[in-house]
């Protein structure tokens, strides 16, 4: 069974309507066209994203927002009809290379988009570095993808793990915090996120009293909370997401620490989990490259359009998907759909200016977004925009030789 038919069968109706509708419209227009034979071949876009498992909702939001961006511009890329080929990567790193090859070698896709999980994304990076396929990463924040392993054909439209937490250092320093305890899970994303905060905080002259790393995905935090209470730092900065974020925020509050030692985090601490965290998260300050109520017209329009197309609310993943779609539209228009002119295509991408719901952004030399990072606060169970924590922040791209 080909990846396309499999994903078609397992796909819910709403999304099938979105993609299928576009495909049907495309087919109809092809039939009616007077010069059928003169039509260029369809452009193949490979989508390697999680469509099952824990990250399925993220994969779906990225996909739907990306197709929304393309359909807004007529559903074509550089004047060519688009064929989407989907593969469910199951967020399974051990199948990463195999799934990538299915699309790159098997389906010979012109553009590859993926994925959410950093481990899987690194497998994709390895393959496209060999094969030369253009890869757009719509989420995975692993530093190396636009760092030591950066390449002319690899673009990231989301963030690097370092980025969202770096600006919190200045926010906390300005609030008078000098001695800070950091805490995360002991895994790559956690290390990189805490690294971003540390870089900023020590450069300002602040001190990291202790750097606590809990084995992943352990959620028994009580021993460390007792330790934090005895260390009495000015504040605590953490990186947690999902179930761990819910548990940590609730435990921290229940231990009475919120009143005496303020808690801060990267935005993932309060993204998609606020309902489960309940009142324990109220008032938390976090930094991220997006917040749902960002006051700009593009964001307002996108929120409404996305809701209309999918009946779901926007989130940071949808925005990243939307920008991936916008980038494809811009770059392929610039080369008039000729994906074989790779250096021209990559130059067009590199110079793209994305008018995003998260604000305008451009690519760094390492091909990661140079973007604003926002300070957000939890008010009445929602993340609310406070201010720009850092204007036009670029990842340090350690080890990247693209110049």
């Amino acid at each position, binding site marked *: 069974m080909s990846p396309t038919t499999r994903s078609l069968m397992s796909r819910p109706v709403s999304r099938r309507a979105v993609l299928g509708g576009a495909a049907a419209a495309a087919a109809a227009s092809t039939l009616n066209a007077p010069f059928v034979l003169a039509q260029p071949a369809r452009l193949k876009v490979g989508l390697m994203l999680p469509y099952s498992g824990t990250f399925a909702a993220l994969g779906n939001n990225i996909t739907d927002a990306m197709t929304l961006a393309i359909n807004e511009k007529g559903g074509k890329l550089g004047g060519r009809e688009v064929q989407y080929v989907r593969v469910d990567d199951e967020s399974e790193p051990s199948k990463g290379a195999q799934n990538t090859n299915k699309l790159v070698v098997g389906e010979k896709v012109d553009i590859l988009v993926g994925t959410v999980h950093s481990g899987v994304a690194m497998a994709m990076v390895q393959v496209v570095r060999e094969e030369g396929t253009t890869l757009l990463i719509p989420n995975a924040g692993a530093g190396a993808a636009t760092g030591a392993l950066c390449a002319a054909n690899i673009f990231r439209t989301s963030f690097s793990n370092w980025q969202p937490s770096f600006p919190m250092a200045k926010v906390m320093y300005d609030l008078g915090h000098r001695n800070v305890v950091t805490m995360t899970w002991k895994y790559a994303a956690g290390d990189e996120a805490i690294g971003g905060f540390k870089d900023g905080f020590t450069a300002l002259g602040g001190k990291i009293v202790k750097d606590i790393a809990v084995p992943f995905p352990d959620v028994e935090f009580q021993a460390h909370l007792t*330790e934090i209470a005895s260390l009495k730092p000015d504040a605590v900065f953490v990186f947690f997401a999902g179930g761990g*974020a*819910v548990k940590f925020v609730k*435990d921290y509050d229940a231990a*009475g620490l919120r009143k005496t030692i303020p808690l801060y985090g990267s935005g993932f601490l309060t993204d998609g989990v606020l309902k489960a965290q309940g009142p324990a998260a109220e008032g938390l300050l976090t930094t991220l490259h997006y917040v749902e109520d960002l006051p700009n017209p593009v964001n307002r329009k996108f929120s409404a359009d996305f809701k209309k197309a999918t009946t779901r609310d926007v989130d940071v993943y949808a925005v990243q998907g939307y920008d991936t779609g916008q980038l494809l539209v811009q770059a392929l228009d610039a080369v008039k759909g000729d994906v074989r002119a790779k250096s021209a295509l990559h130059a067009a991408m590199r110079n793209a200016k994305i008018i995003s719901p998260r604000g305008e952004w451009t690519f760094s030399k390492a091909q990661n977004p140079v973007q604003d990072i926002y300070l957000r606060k939890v008010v009445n169970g929602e993340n609310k925009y406070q201010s720009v924590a850092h204007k036009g922040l670029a990842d340090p791209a350690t080890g990247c030789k693209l110049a």
Partner: protein
Amino acid sequence: MDPLFVSLQILNGIQYGLLLFLIASGLTLVFGILQVINLAHGSFYMIGAYLAFWLTSRTGSLGTAILVGLPLALLLGLAVERLMIRLLYARDHLTQVLLTYGLILVFNEAQRLLFGNDVHGVPVPEIFNASIRLTDTLSYPVYRLVVSAVCLALVFAMYLVIQKTRLGMHIRAGAVDRETVQLLGINIKALSMFVFAAGAGLAALAGMIAAPLSSVYPGIGEHILIICFVVVVIGGIGSIKGAFIAAILVGLADTFGKVLIPEFASVAVYAVMALILLWRPQGLFGRA
């Protein structure tokens, strides 16, 4: 390290240990008496947690959720024993592992279909939603102490049932020699069903009362299963007393491992297990 800090960490360790005991006791009972390796034991913990989430959001009270949810979990335990586990008593462990592993997949998929992949929280019951002030920075949540008290009460109740009642005598006898018990005219089928359902019920109850402390998320069952097997192996298979002591040991090893040797926190528990098994290969209270 100051004494207050150490005693607080001991409290943390015991607390974690008591909760582990509640889950592991069911596992060791089923293991010891029915000779069944029940990998799906963690699923009952997961089912308990999701029942607590679902029923609390419906009824608004964790107490009601437990009163309604616990009988449901027991019924599910009875059904699983009657329809599946019963067929395995005569089979080898590999078959049991295959079936109960399959059950994990079925229960996880059912959870995904019914509740999705989101993380859920269960609010702490209003009357216990307070903290006791310990130092100028740290308070202790009352609900954590309540959970420990419930665990201790259950430890005591289990002790009474197993040591002081006729049913307990049958259970103890069944753990020693299943065939002889049957020859003595005790209905071993009914006893097995009861033990399995009780084990499932204990795991589900643990999931329910722990739900406000942890969060409710997919895969919560597997996470707890491994550490429970460690408890059962250290304590000696089939020994409730062993499971109790082992659970407290594991709780303390985990807590102090994290604080004293953070670099090796994830191996602290397994190092303790390895040392104890070197000393007593059958576990603390296991029969050789």
